[in-house]
């Protein structure tokens, strides 16, 4: 019988090797540079529709996915580019999907909010808040039934705490000891409303009520996220059931690319505070340099290489063909 309590962690933050530090920095900078380009595509009217940018929250996706096997599952959200990239998606095919091209992960049928890459364990981003809670929990049930040792990670924002289905599936995950990790990315805002205005009580009391061990971590510190994710994954693989991580984080930009004037729901000072003092990329690089694991030049080189990858990926996506009109009624039924 599981008794809910604080998920026990081995340390407050992970010790990292040089390779781990550089790899996670690379993962975070890939998300950052990819999304900066997405924002530019929107502003220059080259991208159809909107996108919900993840910039500022990179440590959550990268820290959690660092703890996963390639065949582990994730489900993602409308703010999902970071999760997809951290789970191994390629930038060229991501760009292609956002541009509605045939080379995209979903042949242009999904777009920004629906990128799925089952070969990489990504069961799909979801435009319904809380909409993938059932899917992730079902994937965990399936993994347990099939005896594969896989775990499933359900990424969701704190806005999903308002959705009943989340509690229905957490209840079943706990009853049946399913290998699922609920990762609540608390970026403070349900769209344009502070979560304190929408969320009664304490966040962690909710999973604890189901007997699910939970912990709140600094989502801007990838080493803290990694430690918590490893503990949750290990618990799931041991067959002991679900865990819940609340990652305290911040989106630097708007709810979506068009949300430019944010003064009515949060201050510029608050934004500057997070960007200046709690940036996940600077935090990791600063720590690694102080530890003597790597130099700032090492991190600059990683950034340059990713920059080249992102530019090449964007070029190929811009040149890629659109889907043939005949595809419009393909894939309605399997």
């Amino acid at each position, binding site marked *: 019988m599981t008794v809910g309590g604080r998920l026990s962690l081995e340390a407050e933050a992970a010790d990292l090797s040089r390779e781990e530090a550089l790899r996670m920095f690379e993962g975070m900078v890939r998300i950052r540079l990819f999304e900066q380009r997405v924002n530019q595509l929107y502003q220059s009217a080259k991208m159809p529709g909107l996108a919900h940018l993840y910039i500022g929250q990179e440590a959550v996706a990268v820290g959690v996915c660092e703890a996963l096997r390639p065949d582990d599952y994730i489900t993602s959200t409308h703010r999902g580019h970071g999760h997809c990239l951290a789970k191994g998606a390629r930038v060229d095919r991501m760009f292609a999907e956002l541009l509605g091209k045939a080379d995209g992960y979903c*042949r242009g049928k999904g777009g920004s909010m629906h990128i799925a890459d089952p070969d990489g364990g990504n069961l799909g981003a979801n435009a*319904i808040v809380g909409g993938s809670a059932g899917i992730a929990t079902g994937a965990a*049930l399936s993994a347990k039934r099939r005896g594969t040792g896989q775990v499933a990670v359900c990424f969701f924002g704190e806005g999903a705490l308002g959705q009943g289905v989340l509690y229905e599936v957490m209840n079943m995950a706990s009853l049946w000891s399913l290998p699922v990790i609920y990762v609540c990315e608390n970026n403070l805002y349900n769209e344009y409303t502070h979560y304190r205005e929408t969320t009664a009580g304490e966040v962690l009391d909710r999973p604890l009520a189901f007997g699910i061990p939970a912990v709140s971590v600094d989502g801007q510190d990838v080493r803290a996220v990694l430690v918590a994710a490893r503990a949750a994954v290990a618990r799931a693989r041991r067959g002991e059931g679900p865990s819940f991580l609340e990652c305290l984080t911040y989106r630097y930009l708007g709810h979506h690319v068009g949300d430019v004037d944010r003064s009515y729901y949060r201050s510029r000072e608050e934004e500057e505070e997070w960007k200046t003092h709690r940036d996940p990329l600077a935090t990791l690089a600063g720590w690694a340099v102080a530890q003597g694991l790597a130099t700032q030049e090492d991190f600059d080189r990683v950034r340059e290489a990713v920059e080249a990858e992102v530019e090449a990926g964007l070029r190929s996506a811009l040149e890629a063909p659109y889907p043939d009109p005949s595809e419009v009624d393909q894939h309605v039924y399997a």
Partner: protein
Amino acid sequence: MSTRSPVQVQAGAGVRELTFAQAVREALAEEMRRDPSVFVIGEDVGEAGHPFKVLAGLIDEFGPERVVDTPISEAGITGIAVGAAMTGLRPVVDIMFGDFLTLAMDQLVNQAAKIHYMSGGKLRVPLVVHTTLGATRRSAAQHSQSLHAWFSHVPGLKVALPATPRDAKGLLKAAIRDDSPVVVFEDKMTYQLRGPVPEGEFVIPLGVAEVKREGTDVTVVATSSMVAVALATADLLEAEGISLEVVDPRTTVPLDRETLVASAAKTGRVIVVDEGCRSYGVTAELASVIAEEAFYHLDAPVRRLGAMDVPVPFSPVLEDLTVPTPETVAAAARELLGKA
């Protein structure tokens, strides 16, 4: 055996009389034996065997791992089944009453129905939702609705409406083997009705209508609970020298337009009968298919009979007024023939 010919199942040769509920259970048990990835999940599906006892005994053979009792959480159950279906299992979700599908709408409409398409064909959701429709059980407005039109309106979902024990077995087996999500609606009033059911491997492809009774004067296109009503009407009118042909689409999605249109062209007069509410419902779609594709063969406008556009009332005196009966279908047929 031609699935488009009238039912002429002979006794013997592997055909027994079973109740509708027994036929459903046999289909599930056979598919669970054939394929270890098939499992049942729902409220009171285990020891209780479902309130209508449709699933009685399954847990004894397959155990609680494959006959999964759940909390009363339709959205959660359906969502979990969607995730399981995407990752190698073939869940059959039991939703005790069709009315409770409203609680699982996001999981079915936004998730299950669209995942294959949104992923560009890479993900599949081989999910079956097994549920009920139909009034006249004195269960009032939240346990009596026939909501199959809603799901027929969502691209990506298939919808099966078995009317006989034989169809219940054959369609459910096809639904379980299908790689798309299929919602199977069974009329809760028919579970104890008996009929011939072939033993063993017997699968009715989705999208193949059946002429349940051949006739010459009027075609009655009837679904689910209304097939028995149509057949009773045919008996009634035979004494008056009126010959009805009864056609059962068996699935609204995919729809066997060809069989419907062929029968309409043959008789020239058509009544469509379905237990969903009449407005914006299945009868409207089927009538328009026939009107569009058989127009020049029709001697009269297509008539539609559905449930009244009211919440299902409790009082038997009122409830019985809300659904088509052999008498109302017969009256419509006489009108079409100018014999009213």
